[in-house]
């Protein structure tokens, strides 16, 4: 390594003075320091602060933060409302990810062809992904309007009665899942298509020579070769779904009767509407633990995959 450093120093100026040598040593740190500073101020320190706050009772205004040990956590875990939030988050995440991945995989197998029509359709189903969640939420609020909405009109056309999509606790969470699936399908499909296209063609050619039937080719070649993509999309989907906020805030505000309240919205409510900072932080710490476990699993499996190859 010393060799590399010396050659760098000499490349700049032949007369290697003491200050130049130390600059070559300091230079990497100077180059990463702006980024590291931002990370420390806006990511690392806040995480620590959140953990600290989760053991305290504080209402944002009072000058003192009272240490109350794990009281926030024990209260959270015994609280019925928070249990609902956890259940809602898990239901939302499970169905959103399951449906998005399942439909996207089928669409990818279907749309993975050349030609203008197929690339046009790929772009069409992708367009919701780059549309602001504000517009997606408000557009679907209007489409799901109980009285004048397009969706109920379409249902009535085929003889199904109108459904109170967003105003009934029985349907609200389902409606939010539908919107999430609609928004997410394009991205997932295109990632699957990219995965399909990266499978070496000769694998299929060899199988064809052996007269392997198509469904076996799918099970023996496509599925295993696609599994890293499948795994990636599943984990990313789970992590993102656990943080859902925008659609809930805009479309249902956690209601009706708490039926669509999930993690981030709950933290937002307790932090910004009820000013229970310690309590909200404790909920944040629990979410942090869940997301960390998922991330560790992701990297564990990923590193195995890399070695396996």
């Amino acid at each position, binding site marked *: 390594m010393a060799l590399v450093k010396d050659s760098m120093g000499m490349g700049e100026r032949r007369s290697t003075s003491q200050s130049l040598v130390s600059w070559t040593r300091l230079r990497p740190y100077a180059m990463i320091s702006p980024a590291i500073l931002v990370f420390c101020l806006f990511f690392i320190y806040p995480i620590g602060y959140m953990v600290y706050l989760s053991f305290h009772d504080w209402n944002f205004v009072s000058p003192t933060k009272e240490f109350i040990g794990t009281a926030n956590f024990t209260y959270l875990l015994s609280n019925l409302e928070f249990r609902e939030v956890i259940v809602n988050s898990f239901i939302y995440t499970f169905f959103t990810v399951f449906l998005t991945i399942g439909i996207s995989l089928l669409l990818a197998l279907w749309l993975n062809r050349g030609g203008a029509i197929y690339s046009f359709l790929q772009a069409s189903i992708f367009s919701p992904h780059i549309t602001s969640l*504000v517009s997606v939420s408000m557009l*679907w609020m209007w489409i799901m309007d109980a009285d004048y909405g397009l969706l109920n009109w379409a249902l009535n056309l085929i003889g199904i009665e109108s459904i109170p999509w967003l105003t009934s606790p029985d349907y609200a969470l389902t409606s939010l899942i539908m919107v999430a699936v609609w928004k997410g399908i394009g991205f997932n499909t295109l990632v699957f298509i990219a995965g399909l296209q990266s499978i070496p063609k000769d694998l299929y050619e060899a199988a064809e020579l052996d007269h392997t039937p198509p469904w076996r080719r799918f099970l023996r070649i496509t599925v295993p070769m696609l599994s890293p993509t499948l795994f990636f999309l599943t984990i990313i989907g789970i992590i993102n779904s656990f943080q859902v906020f925008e659609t809930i805030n805009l479309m249902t505000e956690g209601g009706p009767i708490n039926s669509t309240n999930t993690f981030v919205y709950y933290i937002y409510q307790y932090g910004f509407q009820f000013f229970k900072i310690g309590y909200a932080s404790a909920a944040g710490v629990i979410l942090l633990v869940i997301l960390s476990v998922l991330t560790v699993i992701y990297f564990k499996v990923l590193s195995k995959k890399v070695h396996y190859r």
Partner: protein
Amino acid sequence: MKTPLILKVINGLGLVLLFIIFAMPFVWMASTAFKTLGETLTFPPVWIPESLQWANFAQAWNSGPFLKYFFNSVIVTLFILILQFATIIPAAYAFARYQFPLKNFFFALTMICLMIPSQLIFLPVYLNLSSWGLLDSIWGLILPFATSAFGIFLLRQSFMQVPEELLEAARLDDATEWQIIRKIMLPLAKPVLITLALFSFIAHWNDYFWPLVMTTTDNARTLPLGIAMLRQVEGGAAWNTIMAGNLLLVVPILIIFFFAQRHIIRAFVYTGVK
């Protein structure tokens, strides 16, 4: 082996249905945006309004200080992009090309930040910004995103692929490190830079969560926030005005998407393939 006609027809119908599911909501948005209030309250709905109500757009635009929102959006997005490039490029170069003590530690730190979503830490960041007096200012919207762990990660990979001989040759010609970055590294990393710029632009132009949490007055509010507030007008939601406002938000992005489709799709799908 020829595909039977019936299968072709089913395939065609399926494609049309798929297109309807994804395009119809946007058509509906545009249709509503041009209706009178009365026309939005008919059931079954009308698809084509009797006359185009351009006034809806003016009404949406004038219902709040939208010029201010628009400028805030432009400034915030622009500054984030500039700062991100200013911090990402040197950091990625140092991580890719230098050996230095604690390098792995700092890179691990970067990777941890890649995993921390802003949706998780908004509360402590809010409290910090508040104690630094940055709340409700555009700096509170810019500084937390002044760098991007994702960007450092992608650009570092791209920089690592440049052959060492190229750099050695440049150094023999007395090129400074800055010249090497500017003349060799950045041109070779151009696709990744475009990817990052598009990715970041769309994410922050569309962002609703962070401005919602960090602003309390019109001083620093951005366009998505202003659009979201359209539904809080007195006398119930006027869907024609709301959709007109949303059309103003959606159309620019869709136009950019239309022209830079390949780049944008690659920008987003990139992460999935790697």
